[in-house]
């Protein structure tokens, strides 16, 4: 499986990369939405999962979600917002724009695992 982590914090990207690698993902990274679009355009395969911060320079996470949803070839990417933005209206806006799930920082490893399991993105055996 292939995933992409999009966050302007390198520390957060490292944490999320490690988490996904432990689940068996190969992981791409980008520091903001525009860079993520470039990474996706240049990737050999379409990721199954994108973990997306909201507040980033250049292009924020919501704008990235909107751009991804314009591209039919990326329709199978599961989009998960991972952000400190926790206002109800923002969660609704993200989901209405095409995000599948919403994780609020700080998250626990188990909490993130549960969210991905519900999305069918955790390999059999990891949760047992």
């Amino acid at each position, binding site marked *: 499986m292939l995933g992409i982590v999009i966050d*302007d914090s*390198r520390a957060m990207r490292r*944490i999320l990369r490690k988490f996904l690698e432990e689940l068996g993902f190969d992981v791409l990274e980008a520091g903001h939405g525009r860079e993520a679009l470039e990474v996706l355009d240049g990737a050999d395969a379409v990721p199954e999962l994108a973990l997306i911060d909201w*507040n980033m320079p250049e292009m924020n996470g919501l704008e990235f979600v909107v751009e991804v949803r314009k591209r039919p070839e990326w329709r199978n990417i599961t989009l998960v917002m991972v952000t400190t*933005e*926790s206002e109800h209206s923002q969660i609704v806006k993200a989901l209405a724009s095409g995000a599948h799930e919403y994780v*609020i*920082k*700080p998250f626990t490893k188990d909490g993130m695992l549960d969210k991905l399991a519900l999305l069918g993105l955790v390999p059999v055996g990891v949760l047992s």
Partner: protein
Amino acid sequence: MTVDVLPTAVDLDGIAEQVWVAFLDGGNELVIHSGQSDDSSELSASVGIVGTYDGHVVVSCTEAASRDVASALFAMPADEVTEDEVGDALGELANVLGGNVKSMLPAPSTMSLPIVAKTQHQHFPGTTEVCRTMVTWRGNPFNVALLVSRNN
């Protein structure tokens, strides 16, 4: 709009504990000193909040403490983390603390990207301190403060 109920030091204690435990595996090495502060800080990181409430959440600490944060987040020895990694880690800490403070305020509001500075105190003219807490983690003190615009 006027905000009637601002977060308190107890709220800040809870947010700080949650963030340290989740991000920095701080459960066994964490002590919260509600309402206190330490004056040895050398670095500070802040995020601004604008909306129904205008203010700043600021975290400050010594350079050694910030290296410990970067070391934990990047899983590297403290003496091997770069200045950029220290800034990135402290900025993300401010971002997560600020996001959780913002969640206690009336919507809508927006939060800035973090600013990290080599200074004990970032100055925000026209603001006053609402509450603060001090976290001791691995023996290092971290100040966390909420400042609010006097116009609120």
